[in-house]
């Protein structure tokens, strides 16, 4: 059982505050949907939890099992069990999905540290999970998560369609086996088939030992993935939390209602 606590989090870029006091507690086994209009700061929250260096935390804390993670670099947070599926995954030409994932998995599972004694100054190719074991696991997971085997050799997100990128994000999550996953609009821009594949992947990974923060603009994905909690995010903070009925209400009333109910002048609805 793990717990991720976000306490009175104020964060932003230089002098512009974007997150204005976020409080949220996520436990293993929970799916917490975070819904909000564009520009409300959802992606910023994901970035700040994952440790993006562009954002400054002014106040508050993020605790993983009681320990603050604010001083940790992004890679250390990932090794500690936090995973962010990006709204816009970056393309890295020349780096194959398999090569990249082998390095990532080896780091997260501690192959790199284990063999520190014999480390050839961190040269790519050394201190890695044995190729055979890695291949076997990757192939199995590609099958399970509906990713074509040809993707192993393709360059990471390079020339991928929106749906392919999001599916690959789910595959990465499956390989890295995090304690907590923040999925930033993993549903947006997907047609119904791709949405099914992605939701199916999330459901498979939604085990008792894993918690999800499901960030979304639309209610649509919640027809496939059932959340335990739904929070409305607006103006850089959570304005309401409840069960799945909150999503249904939002669906009915729309973000216009949120705006008038919790009016915050500087936020623009896109």
């Amino acid at each position, binding site marked *: 059982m793990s717990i991720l606590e976000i306490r009175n989090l104020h964060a932003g870029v230089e002098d512009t505050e974007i997150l204005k006091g976020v409080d949220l507690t996520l436990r293993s086994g929970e799916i917490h949907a975070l819904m909000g209009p564009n520009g409300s700061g959802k992606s910023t929250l994901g970035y700040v939890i994952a440790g993006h260096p562009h954002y400054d935390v002014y106040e508050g804390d993020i605790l993983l099992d009681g320990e603050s993670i604010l001083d940790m670099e992004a*890679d250390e*947070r990932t*090794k500690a069990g936090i995973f962010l599926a990006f709204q816009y995954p*970056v393309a*890295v*030409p020349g*780096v194959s999905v398999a090569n990249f994932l082998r*390095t990532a998995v080896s780091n997260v599972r501690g192959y790199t540290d284990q063999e520190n004694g014999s480390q050839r100054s961190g040269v790519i190719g050394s201190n890695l999970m044995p190729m055979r074991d890695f291949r076997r696991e990757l192939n199995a997971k590609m099958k399970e998560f509906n990713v074509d085997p040809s993707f192993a050799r393709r360059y990471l997100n390079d020339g991928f369609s929106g749906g392919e990128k999001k599916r690959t994000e789910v595959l990465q999550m499956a390989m890295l086996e995090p304690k907590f996953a923040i999925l930033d609009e993993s549903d947006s821009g997907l047609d119904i088939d791709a949405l099914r594949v992605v939701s199916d992947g999330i459901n498979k990974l939604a085990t008792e030992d894993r918690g999800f923060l499901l960030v979304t603009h639309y209610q649509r994905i919640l027809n496939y993935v059932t959340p335990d909690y739904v929070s409305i995010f607006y103006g850089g903070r959570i304005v309401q939390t409840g069960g799945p009925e909150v999503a249904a209400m939002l669906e009915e009333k729309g973000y216009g209602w949120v705006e008038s109910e919790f009016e915050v002048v500087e936020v623009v609805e896109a």
Partner: protein
Amino acid sequence: MEYAIGLSEEGVRALSAARNEPEWMLEFRLEAWRIFEAMPWPKPTDEAWRRTRLTGFKLEDYQLNNAAPTEGDRTGVSKLLGQELDEMESAASLIFQDGGLLYRDSSEDLAGKGVIFTDLQSAVTEHGELLRRYFMTQAVKPDHNKFTALHAAMWDTGAFVYVPRNTKVDLPLQIILNQATEGAAGYHHTLVVTEEGAEVTVVDDLLGGKDGMQSAVVELCQGENSILRYMNLQDFDHSTWNFLTGRAAMQRNADLRWIQVSWGSKVTKAFLDIDLLGEGGHAELLGIYFPTGRQHIDHQTLQLHRAPRCFSDLLFNGALKDKARNVYMGIIKVFPGAQQTDAFQRNGNLILDGTARADSIPGLEIEADDVRCTHAATAAQVEDEYVFYLMARGLSRPQAERMIVQGFFQAVLDRVPVESVVEKLERVIERKIGG
């Protein structure tokens, strides 16, 4: 101008005599020496030398190699060179050190096929007639520039590769040069001749050269329908002044893939030309470089389309660190009548530090009307977004940066056709990036 011992007409005579050269080679050297003396040194106002200055370079500071090794068995090969040798599976190899041949081996009966793969010095006596036909007569002539004239007069090490008609050598032929003596001047020559329908892969692997200078020439003479893959892997000490002039002279339907790896040296000025002489030639010139510290690398390329229906594609990708500097200048020249030319030229720079600098100067000179030519130059930094994405997958910052750089070079590696060459390159890139 006064020269140290050896850098004079008497020096050229002495050099030739010490190597027991026939009269024609002595005459060739003397004529080249006269050309060298008559040519002015490059000036900073010369277009080719505006961005790469010879400030601090004095030819007389460097000693000619006068103690050439004697050819022997593997026991005379150092651990470092042995590693270079074993790292790539080859049909045969030659190791040169300090102006002479140190070692040779062969795993295939090349002579039985009529293939010549030997040191130039032996070729002068053993294959004089053949050598004389090609040596600095077709691809790079002595008067090409000041450094080629000097090279023609002073050449010391080098290989002669000759592949007869319709003959194929499967594994690469490997040439290793190690300039072990410090402060020396080296003049390495590579002459590859592929007759009609021949096929071969040749790798030049260049090392050493501490506080020295190298003035090398590469000549690739391709007969009709021949296939040549050539890699020049330059990993000299970071104190070497390195000058290189290379040209491929390609007859009808010849197919070339040339991989230029400029890793080492303090300063490199390389002139690399593709000369498409016959119809239907296909040439790819691929370059990678990764200067660090204060290294200065300059490639100047020419894609000469003299005949119709030829294809040339150039891709130079480099990463730069610290205060490194890179210069790329390239011209695609399409002569009148060279219709249906397809010519491409791309130079990409990945700038890893704000203190590094890359200049890219592409150019087109087109005198035919039915052609397809494009050129592009890009300079990019390793974006924080990329690094963060990889770090969010558990990679450390240095690992993330290395992976991005490696990916950047991969675009070139993807086009290297020989597996053992790709593997060698991957290791070489890893060493540089990991260091």
